[in-house]
């Protein structure tokens, strides 16, 4: 895969070792590798959590929950074993950053797992990669073997008297397994059906034991926080949004790519300066700021800082860091339809609002786009989507509904144009109907 893209504004923290041969443990050690784990071994669990809290690191999977706080929810005493689970089931459309981490710096993931485990006194960790990333399994397994050979994993890690094991595996193709409770089900060898919460995984998780579940980027960031110091890390970002983020720029850009930029980086600048702007002299129409489930922003709404709070204030979400840029030629109904087709395909069918909602929304969007739609469809689409919100066990229903509501709200005219002409104007121009 292509390497990480860089720009003068890039701040390499997570990508500090990318392209430096760090997949080999010897090289990783030369680049300050496993120093963070050694440091954590001298600290109490509370001190480790305190350091992560002080960094203002928030979950990089999409929800942006403060990582240190999440770890602090794990009970100190537990009759059942505790676990750390790394979510590398990266599947939110527009997101391709964790792949780079596993490929370029697998030991950072292992080191992050060790530190997370020390903070809750877990004795076992799991690294779950999406099935499509099969080539990464070889890289991760080699790294895990190297860490065992050095005594950094297994019995008596780093001579500390603590035992800690790590297992790496892949999934087999399922977006929903990127959701934490479905991920645990999958790891237990079952269909990835979500669990109702509470209880939350920090209390009752994998095999019924207290479990930390973090996105791969979050976990891989942890050793860097110990490497440069929590205060330094926090300083890079904005208030309550520490550090950097791997932003995946895609769509209509001159220079799409994955860039590591400070949290809070201006979206407009990200598009026009980092991503090189829109090709072929076209104008910007819209931006999906954080993966396919996040509500679309219009061209007028992009002068915002890319952190969880500022994008939230703008009515969308920072999500998984996947920034999709749409130029003026894009048919928003077609885009909404393609987005829905995905969620309909991925809905597991467990919750009726999601199973039926995504199916009906795909059908309605299809007829608005292809012709055959009726005027009531636009309001029905919105009504259906609004009635899915918050009514499902896992956020997949919301992930399908939220962008749909925004597409209708912000580009209603395009939906109406489709109905007036009974079909997509863009596709009619290309395929004139000869009657």
């Amino acid at each position: 895969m292509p390497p990480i893209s860089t720009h003068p504004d890039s701040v390499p923290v997570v990508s500090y070792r990318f392209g430096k041969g760090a997949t080999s443990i010897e090289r990783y050690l030369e680049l300050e590798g496993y120093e963070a784990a050694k440091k954590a071994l001298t600290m109490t669990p509370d001190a480790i959590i305190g350091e992560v809290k002080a960094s203002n690191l928030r979950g990089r999977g999409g929800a942006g929950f403060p990582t240190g706080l999440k770890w602090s929810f794990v009970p100190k005493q537990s009759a059942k074993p505790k676990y750390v689970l790394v979510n590398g089931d990266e599947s939110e459309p527009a997101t391709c950053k964790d792949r780079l981490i596993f490929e370029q710096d697998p030991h950072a993931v292992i080191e992050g797992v060790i530190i997370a485990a020390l903070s809750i006194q877990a004795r076992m960790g799991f690294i779950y990669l999406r099935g499509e990333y099969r080539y990464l399994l070889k890289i991760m397994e080699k790294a895990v073997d190297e860490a065992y050979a050095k005594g950094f994993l297994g019995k008596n890690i780093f001579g500390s008297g603590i035992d800690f094991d790590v297992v790496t595996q892949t999934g087999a193709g399922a977006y929903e397994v990127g959701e934490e409770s479905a991920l645990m089900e999958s790891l237990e060898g079952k269909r990835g059906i979500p669990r109702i919460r509470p209880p939350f995984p920090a209390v009752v998780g994998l095999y019924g034991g207290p479990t930390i579940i973090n996105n791969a980027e979050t976990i891989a960031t942890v050793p860097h926080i110990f490497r440069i110091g929590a205060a330094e890390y926090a300083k890079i970002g904005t208030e309550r949004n520490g550090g950097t983020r791997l932003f995946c720029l895609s769509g209509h850009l001159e220079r799409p790519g994955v860039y590591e930029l400070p949290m809070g980086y201006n979206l407009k600048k990200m598009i026009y300066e980092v991503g090189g702007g829109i090709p072929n002299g076209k104008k910007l129409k819209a931006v999906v700021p954080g993966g396919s489930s996040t509500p679309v922003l219009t061209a007028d709404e992009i002068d915002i800082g890319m952190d969880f709070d500022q994008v939230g204030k703008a009515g969308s979400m920072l999500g998984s860091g996947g920034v999709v840029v749409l130029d003026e030629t894009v048919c928003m109904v077609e885009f909404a339809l393609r987005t829905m087709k995905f969620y309909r395909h991925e809905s597991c069918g467990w919750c009726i609002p999601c199973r039926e909602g995504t199916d009906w929304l795909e059908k309605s969007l299809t007829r608005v786009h292809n012709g055959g739609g009726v005027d009531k469809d636009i309001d029905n689409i919105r009504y259906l989507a609004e009635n899915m919100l918050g009514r499902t066990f896992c956020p997949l229903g919301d992930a399908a509904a939220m962008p749909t509501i925004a597409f209708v709200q912000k580009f209603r005219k395009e939906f109406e144009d489709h109905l007036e002409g009974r079909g997509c104007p863009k596709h009619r121009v290309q395929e004139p109907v000869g009657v």
Partner: protein
Amino acid sequence: MSTPATIFSPQLAARFDKLVTLYPVKRSALVPMLLYAQDEVGYLSDAVIAEIAERIGITESDVRSVISYYSLLRTKPAGKYHVQVCTNICCMLRGGNELFEHCRKTLGVENKGVTADGVFSLEEVECIGACSWAPAVQVNYDFHENLTPEAMDEVLDGYRSQAEKGTGR
């Protein structure tokens, strides 16, 4: 030792023997086992399902219920080279649909079809995690990114000549 007769290669059988011991419960090995078995056999045949059910100690019906959930798992053979074209949003914006159409015409098969010689199968797939390098295609597990129809032809030609030489997979 654990399983007297196996349909898998000795290497894979050994891997499975180890895999079931790694987790707190045996069943955790199920999803990876199914995928690794499919990689070797080509698909999840009745015999594969029966042996995996036996190894884990669950029913075949339980195994089938898990298989039907995961999109990478299949119970019918695919081509030697399974061409998976992403048409999700990021690829769509950069020509993913056109690329899929191109593959459909070039290979002469519909979605999920297999060519008569069994060399290729084609599938329109959801996001494969190559969004910043779209449009992208996965052939078996290999990624091909920043594609054009012309570049796709070269990719397919490469696999075709591998098939003729009897190498690959």
